[in-house]
């Protein structure tokens, strides 16, 4: 969208990745359970969730991972590939509440076949409390002469 093509060279360490805010509702949590065939009751029954000490049905760990993945893919487009995503959920995320995904370039790696960016990623709720944190590896193809 009018922006310069992202390259490994033009992204400095500490650069921020454009923020992504999502607000998964009950329907989305239900759809994600359905599409992954996840029948765990804490994702569809408020009574069951409350009985387990949770405030409401909770957003799936795996769905939070997809939001963090989209934070990266919205940013890189077709310039690079998301190679790895690791994340840990530390607080329940609830439907109908904002989840703000953020990222920052932590390191740059130049290997023989690929140039990679290592990014710190986080997901927070509207109160700026951390829901999940982790790391993403973004890989750029290297066209080296083999000659």
């Amino acid at each position: 969208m009018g922006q310069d093509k992202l390259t490994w060279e033009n992204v400095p360490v500490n650069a921020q990745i454009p923020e992504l805010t999502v607000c998964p509702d009950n329907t989305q949590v239900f759809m994600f359970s359905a599409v992954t065939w996840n029948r765990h009751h804490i994702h569809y029954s408020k009574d069951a969730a409350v009985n387990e000490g949770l405030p409401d049905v909770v957003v799936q760990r795996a769905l939070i991972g997809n939001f963090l993945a989209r934070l990266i893919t919205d940013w890189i487009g077709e310039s690079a590939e998301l190679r790895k995503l690791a994340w840990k959920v530390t607080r329940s995320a609830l439907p109908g509440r904002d989840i703000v995904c953020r990222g920052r370039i932590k390191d740059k790696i130049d290997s023989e076949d690929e140039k990679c960016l290592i990014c710190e990623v986080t997901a927070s709720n509207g109160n700026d409390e951390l829901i999940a944190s982790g790391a993403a590896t973004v890989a750029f193809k290297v066209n080296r002469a083999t000659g």
Partner: protein
Amino acid sequence: MDSTLPEDVLAMIGVEKIRLYDVTKRDIRRFSQAIGETNPIHFDEDYAKSSKYGTIVAPPLFCQMFTFEDVPADQLPDDGSPIEIDVPLPARRTVGGASSYEIFQPVKAGDRITVKSSLRDVFAKEGRTGRLYFVVVETEFSNQENEPVAKETATYIKRV
């Protein structure tokens, strides 16, 4: 491996389960809708043709769609939690945890995905509110060319 755990739990570690799934455009479209993804590369053929992939590709974590075995509901634990983490532990509730997901190549419609899943580890830690059990499941996904597509190592936490 945690030697304080019951023998029957330890015996489950490393046992592999294998199953096959055929990927359709509809699978990719539905998964994209479920994660709120609006990039046309996942559902618009004309758009996808002009992309570097030349065809519709699935979002990066798409193989999550095949992580849980589609057993009938009556084979699941009472809380409906996945059979992959149905380990006989003195713990009732399963929560969040962590995941490490590697992507080796994009999944396309027509791919036949082999899912190889196994319990990698089970260990206990004392938490603030009692004993926590960590259940680690590894799932490898490969395609019809026998090439690796993705691999996930997920850690689930169980507590009383």
